[in-house]
């Protein structure tokens, strides 16, 4: 019994502690202090969670094994999370000191390189279609065909019923593929633009920005189809349609922010592109590309998913304003924009601090 208690309480901190001292050579005194710190933080957080879940007191005598296992596992998760947080913060603390300088630099560089990124985007678009028979029609055909596949699978095989189902899926798909493409490009962009960045200085996020313009343009074309579909379905159009613009801006900001952050880590962490791919694949099903998250996933999780996943929220909002003529909450839209700006700021600052060593690594 005592042994079980010990394992439950000491196991997770030991794990975190082991992960930590593994990498540093500390004195005995410091590592004991470290361990005590871990012990308190981890067990406190586990206790808080179990308190919220309804266990008000820790009585060791009448504890079930399943509770112990849960407690232990939760502790392990906290240990790893704590460890990762420490790792990330240690690397990035100094960044916040230069925030103001970085914002000014961002403004200046954006102004300087904006024309270039637009040109580059146009050039990319042109090269993409230069050698295909169907030219720019591919930008319509590709999402359209994907939509047909999903309509078949979800509408016909799985019998998902939504009003205006084709347009419903199409909107989700368009927004999602914009997000996904940019995030994936972001992770790999520094490596793939080696020929440029090893010869000349350019703020690295400009490369991503340009790619986002390319994908954004394709997204706009896809939305052309949405408009046609709305005509076919005779969707009742309300004034809420105007909300499309702030939604798009939100989407752009969030994607850019995430892309910039991933771009930075993508340089140093080689396996990041695998991880992102897996996470994205998981996310596509949690984002409600093919179904309405809030309706299909049992309460309260569906609502939670939609609330805490910006892309899911934006997709749902886009459907609401375009197809169902509903109004959406301005607060959430605004909140996500602020959130995106904070992440973006952090990303840009990180990139400015580190971009000159990218060339040495790749």
């Amino acid at each position: 019994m005592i042994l079980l208690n010990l394992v439950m309480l000491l196991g997770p901190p030991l794990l975190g502690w082991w992960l930590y001292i593994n990498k540093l050579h500390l004195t005995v005194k410091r590592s004991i202090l470290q361990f005590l710190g871990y012990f308190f933080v981890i067990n406190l957080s586990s206790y808080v969670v179990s308190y919220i879940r309804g266990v008000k007191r820790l009585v060791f005598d009448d504890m079930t094994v399943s509770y112990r296992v849960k407690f232990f596992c939760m502790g392990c998760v906290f240990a790893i999370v704590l460890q990762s947080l420490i790792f990330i913060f240690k690397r990035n603390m100094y960044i916040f000191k230069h925030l103001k300088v970085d914002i000014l630099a961002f403004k200046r560089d954006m102004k300087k390189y904006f024309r270039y990124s637009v040109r580059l985007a146009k050039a990319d678009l042109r090269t993409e279609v230069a050698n295909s028979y169907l030219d720019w029609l591919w930008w319509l055909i590709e999402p359209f065909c994907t939509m047909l596949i999903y309509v078949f699978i979800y509408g016909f095989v799985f019998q998902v019923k939504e009003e205006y189902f084709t347009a419903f899926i199409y909107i989700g798909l368009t927004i999602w593929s914009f997000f996904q493409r940019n995030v994936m490009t972001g992770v790999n962009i520094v490596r793939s633009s080696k020929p440029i960045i090893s010869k000349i200085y350019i703020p690295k996020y400009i490369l991503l920005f340009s790619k986002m313009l390319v994908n954004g343009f394709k997204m706009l074309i896809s939305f052309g189809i949405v408009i046609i579909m709305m005509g076919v379905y005779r969707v009742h159009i309300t004034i809420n349609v105007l909300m499309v613009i702030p939604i798009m801006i939100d989407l752009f900001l969030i994607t850019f922010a995430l892309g910039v952050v991933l771009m930075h880590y993508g340089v140093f962490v080689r396996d990041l592109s695998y991880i992102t791919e897996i996470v994205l694949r998981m996310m596509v099903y949690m984002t409600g590309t093919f179904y309405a998250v809030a309706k299909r996933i049992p309460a309260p999780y569906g609502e939670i998913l939609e609330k805490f996943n910006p892309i899911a929220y934006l997709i749902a909002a886009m459907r609401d304003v375009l197809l169902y003529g509903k109004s959406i909450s301005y607060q959430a839209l605004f909140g996500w924009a602020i959130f995106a700006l904070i992440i973006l700021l952090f990303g840009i600052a990180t990139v400015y601090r580190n971009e000159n060593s990218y060339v040495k690594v790749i």
Partner: protein
Amino acid sequence: MEKSEEAKNAVEVTDVCINYKLLNNITVRRALFKKREEEEIFEAVKNVTFSVKEGGILGIIGKNGSGKSTLLRAIAGIFSPNSGSIDLKGHSVSLMALGIGFKDNLSGRENIILSGMLLGFSEKEVIDKIESIIDFAEIGSFIDKPVRTYSSGMHSKLAFSITAMLETDIMLVDEVLSVGDEKFRRKSLSKMKELIGDRNRTVIIVSHSIETLREMCDEVLWLHDGRIKGMGEPNDILEQYVEFMAK
């Protein structure tokens, strides 16, 4: 001596060190589960201090792997030194490199604009210069064809013309370039000399060719294993260098 004190410095390099970390890629596995590995650090440039006067021409010489190109790239702003500072006094700078950011499927004309803008010129400046670039490149009607259809000679002619016609205050040259067929080679070489010889422009040349450096430079810097081994009159330094290399 008096004269050189009047002229302002265009480039000031102070106590610059540049390191490469040889082991720098983190994977998630390594970050979480491995002991901190001893990072191997390779010091490419160690405590280098020098300055170049406005309009001066500095040659950098040294054996392979002595940190010449690294230093040049640091001055171009491609990466920052680990310690020390590089002050360009607000001058525009470019590293002479051929065909930066060329896109194979685009026409030569489009590539000129892209490449020029990447070098830091505005769209308008590039378009103003575009005719002279095309004239200089001598590739005729190919200018409106995609770059992938070019022969390698045409490719480098166009690339050279872009870098040669778009001028910056400070020019960094990694090996004096001469490209194309015999006729264009002569032309490009004389253009290079004209560009380098222009007294308004500050030039730093990295080269292995003792002849070129003797002919063109005001001053020569000799790098050896990342440290300055000597700096001064071209003739003196180059003589020492030749002697040293002959051993």
